[in-house]
């Protein structure tokens, strides 16, 4: 890894991370403050006034009754997928394809650093920054909960949900990173780097709408983990761990190898 490049990459991308984190915090605080241990019926009644298909698409058909399952079902089914996904897509594209398209990659490669070192540094930035994002979300979840409802959050299962979602995002960012390495234009890199994760996302939402559509979920990366099931302890966790890890390993490795070998029109 190249420290100078890592610092530079952080400098030009941290603001995107901060914006994404800020938006996520806004929703997180609203959701936690909506929890009312005395009056779950009230929340249910309010939700029933919403269009049921929309609620289902967002994975909100069953709401947990504890704070943990409430936050997890409300927040981790949709918002914690959408915003980190936006982050992965934008940043992955900027890390490689944008440098190639703009030609600034030529300056990086005109220094005594191998292509391999440069692409690995960029990959590490993406992986680490997503890890930090989830670490902050996890900590913020604990802090908000402890302030508003001390002692209600089951930290162990909340951690597990975060870890599994993080692994999912190693895979999602890997997909975007792969296309960023593969293509020389941001147009193509974004078309696929955003297109594939968004398609998974849409399939996952569709599969939630009605039971007879649930088979669609088999084609979606996001249906691999069901946060509420994890909290309730009856999800098959090994699949939610192994499959995203494998996808992440494959996409990052393939992206790195391709970038190391390909022709660069810079």
């Amino acid at each position: 890894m190249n420290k100078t490049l890592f610092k530079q990459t952080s400098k030009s991308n941290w603001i995107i991370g901060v914006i994404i984190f800020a938006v996520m915090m806004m929703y997180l605080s609203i959701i936690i403050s909506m929890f009312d241990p005395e009056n779950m019926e009230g929340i249910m009644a309010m939700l029933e006034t919403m269009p049921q298909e929309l609620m289902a698409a967002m994975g909100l058909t069953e709401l947990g009754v504890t704070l943990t399952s409430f936050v997890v079902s409300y927040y981790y089914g949709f918002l914690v997928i959408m915003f980190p996904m936006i982050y992965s897509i934008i940043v992955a594209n900027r890390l490689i394809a944008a440098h190639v398209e703009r030609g600034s990659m030529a300056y990086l490669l005109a220094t005594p650093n191998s292509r391999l070192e440069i692409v690995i540094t960029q990959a590490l930035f993406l992986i680490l920054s997503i890890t930090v994002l989830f670490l902050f979300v996890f900590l913020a979840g604990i802090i908000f909960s402890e302030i508003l409802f001390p002692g209600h959050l089951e930290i162990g299962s909340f951690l597990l949900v975060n870890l599994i979602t993080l692994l999912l995002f190693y895979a999602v960012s890997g997909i975007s990173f792969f296309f960023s390495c593969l293509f020389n234009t941001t147009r193509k890199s974004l078309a696929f780097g955003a297109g594939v994760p968004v398609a998974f996302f849409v399939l996952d939402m569709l599969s939630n709408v009605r039971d007879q559509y649930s088979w669609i979920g088999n084609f979606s990366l996001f249906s691999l983990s069901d946060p509420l099931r994890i909290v309730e302890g009856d999800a098959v966790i090994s699949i939610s761990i192994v499959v995203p890890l494998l996808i992440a390993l494959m996409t990052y490795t393939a992206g790195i190898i391709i970038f190391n070998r390909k022709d660069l029109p810079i």
Partner: protein
Amino acid sequence: MSIIQVENVTKTYKSGKGIFDISFSVDQGEVFGYLGPNGAGKTTTIRQLMGFTNVDQGRCLIRGMDTRLQAEEIQKFVGYIPGEIAFFNNMTGKQFLDFISQMRKQAKSRTAELVTRFELDVKPKISKMSKGMKQKVALTAAFMHDPEIYILDEPTSGLDPLMQKTFIELILEEKKRGKTILMSSHSFEEVERTSDRAGVIREGRLVALEDVNSLKAAQRKAFIVTVVSSGEVELLQNSNLEISRITGNQVEIIISSNYDEFIRVLTKCSVKGLDVLNQNLEQAFMKYYGREAEKNE
């Protein structure tokens, strides 16, 4: 001793364009001009020397190392200017130069000296700089670590005439200090002033590889001679000089190496005006460009 070696390199793009069976070498301490009009294949060749692309056939070596496989090692002693101006737009000039120095883990630096010399203001953001300013930043980045070898892709593009002169002086100084330089250009004047030898590339093929003096003999210059009478126009027509156009009493004459004869004929006329016509590379080197093109068609 050859520092840069290009051996039978072919690189074809999907469009069918590219470079075909290019071979040349640049010796230690030599300045090599790589001449060709836009789209001839200069950048394609230089990308190969920088290890950005894979050859279809042949190989490129710098100090005996493969430019594709050992780029990291080679970049320790190479200074490079890309053909197209491209930067990290959000940095200021200073931030960019510092960043590149750190990427090179560069101990010594003559950045300050170059910045003064090019009258470069490094404080503004690069995205706010003019084309000429950006090119100066690129020049500084290529020269600041005092490399042994320079690979410069159209280094004077975007520079005003004064800065072009400053640049040429710098190249000549580096040459005196024993540096090896490969520089592409579409201006023969620039190559003439800096280089020992030149390669002329046309549509991806090397059509000449000569020292600059013999290239100069092949260069065609157009002069516009204004004479007093139509009788004198006839006199010029009847001479052995190559005449490309006549408008009234103005005669456009093409000269390659027959200056003696040109002067001799002119002394027989009363010349009222004598101008040099600016010509582009293809016009100046009809021998390699125009006529061959005609023959091929």
